[in-house]
């Protein structure tokens, strides 16, 4: 399923839980793991001075420093690397999202794995939105990305229970194909879920229950025609439609199902082409989920 995984890491605490997921996943699936780190943030255009991720001090980049950082990464993940034979470590200089995307184009991974934001916990943005690197990579990534944004979303012992969240868009169709492929390859259970949005569309008016019930029935019909019809011999699935605030319902449903993974399409609604946003529902699911989230964008 995943032969090549690109793990973009800050090699700091912010990436620890993503590391737990990615090392277990690579080990279980026998995938090649490319551990990729982008050195600091250039202080100004074309500068060769970067901020060291750990010390936050300015450092001149040269071959010696890059080798030292590679060694640091090796030491940081020493325990995990002891059980992982098929890996490589690469350090690049530049703007993180550009370098991650460049590396993805070069190595053509099947999956990019990213940790949470490295922003300060004092920053008000920290708890309510995803990091800009994540948003930019997610938007332009040539392959699905897996995000582990908080400790609760870390690896807890396996991958067998997958939630596929859909809004019935074309992008969601692609995400479904991907979710079904994973579920089939691991012989797991696939939970197809649609959250009926009863908030934003009604300008504050509450939707009558008859209308909600009607839309729920309609959604089940959509699930059957769009997804169940594609599954043929695959019987290990369930489907549910809950009404409410979509991202909250997806997070609640995932918790209820003790799911190990959420698969969603991130650009299922028209987005501002210039902005880094990945869609409010996807962003909120990534922020709140208690398991890793895979964002499929094409």
């Amino acid at each position, binding site marked *: 399923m995943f032969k090549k995984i690109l793990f973009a890491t800050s090699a700091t605490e912010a990436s620890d839980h993503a590391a737990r997921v990615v090392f277990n996943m690579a080990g279980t699936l026998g995938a090649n793991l490319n551990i990729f780190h982008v050195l600091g943030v250039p202080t100004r255009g074309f500068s060769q001075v970067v901020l060291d991720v750990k010390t936050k001090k300015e450092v001149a980049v040269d071959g010696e420093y890059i080798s030292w950082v590679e060694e640091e990464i090796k030491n940081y993940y020493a325990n995990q690397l002891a059980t992982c034979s098929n890996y490589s470590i690469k350090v690049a200089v530049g703007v993180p999202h550009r370098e991650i995307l460049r590396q993805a184009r070069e190595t053509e991974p099947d999956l990019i794995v990213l940790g949470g934001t490295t922003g300060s916990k004092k920053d008000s943005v920290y708890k309510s939105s995803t990091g800009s690197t994540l948003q930019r990579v997610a938007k332009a990534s040539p392959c699905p990305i897996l995000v582990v944004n908080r*400790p609760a979303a870390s690896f*807890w*012992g396996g991958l067998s229970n997958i939630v596929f969240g859909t809004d019935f868009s074309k992008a969601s169709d692609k995400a479904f194909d991907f979710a079904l492929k994973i579920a089939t390859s691991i012989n797991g259970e696939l939970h197809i879920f649609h959250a009926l949005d009863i908030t934003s569309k009604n300008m504050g008016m509450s939707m009558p229950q008859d209308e909600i019930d009607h839309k729920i029935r309609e959604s089940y019909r959509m699930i059957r025609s769009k997804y169940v019809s594609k599954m043929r011999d695959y019987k290990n699935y369930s489907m549910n439609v809950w009404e409410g605030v979509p991202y909250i319902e997806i997070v609640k449903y995932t918790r209820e199902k003790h799911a190990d993974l959420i698969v969603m399409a991130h650009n299922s609604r028209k987005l501002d082409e210039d902005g880094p946003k990945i869609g409010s529902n996807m962003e909120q699911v990534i922020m709140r989920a208690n398991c890793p989230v895979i964002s499929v964008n094409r």
Partner: protein
Amino acid sequence: MKKILIVDDDPNIRDYLVALLEDNGYDTCTASNVKDGLKIVKEYKPDLITLDLEMPGEWGPRFYRQLSQDNELKNTPVIVISGLSGKDYAISKAVATLTKPFDKDELLSIIKENTL
């Protein structure tokens, strides 16, 4: 006598918990992995379970998932005892999460509170 099931892959922890709990008047049973734990829990029907998270093969949360699908056992109190980072988030319905090495008086008090 209240029955406690100990699920942990570390034999030293298992032995220590057995000695501690039996000295304090509990009946105990142990399992070193999730598979055995699931088999034993159905026969033994414990009043409380102490559960490690990271074990060879399946992990503790998988044990809890199976447990919560069994109508007879789903409300059995579970105490997570682990050294894993982020352990507080692993099983949201756990009655407590203790870090290894744990304080024995704290454990006994939590067990007493949850096996009344």
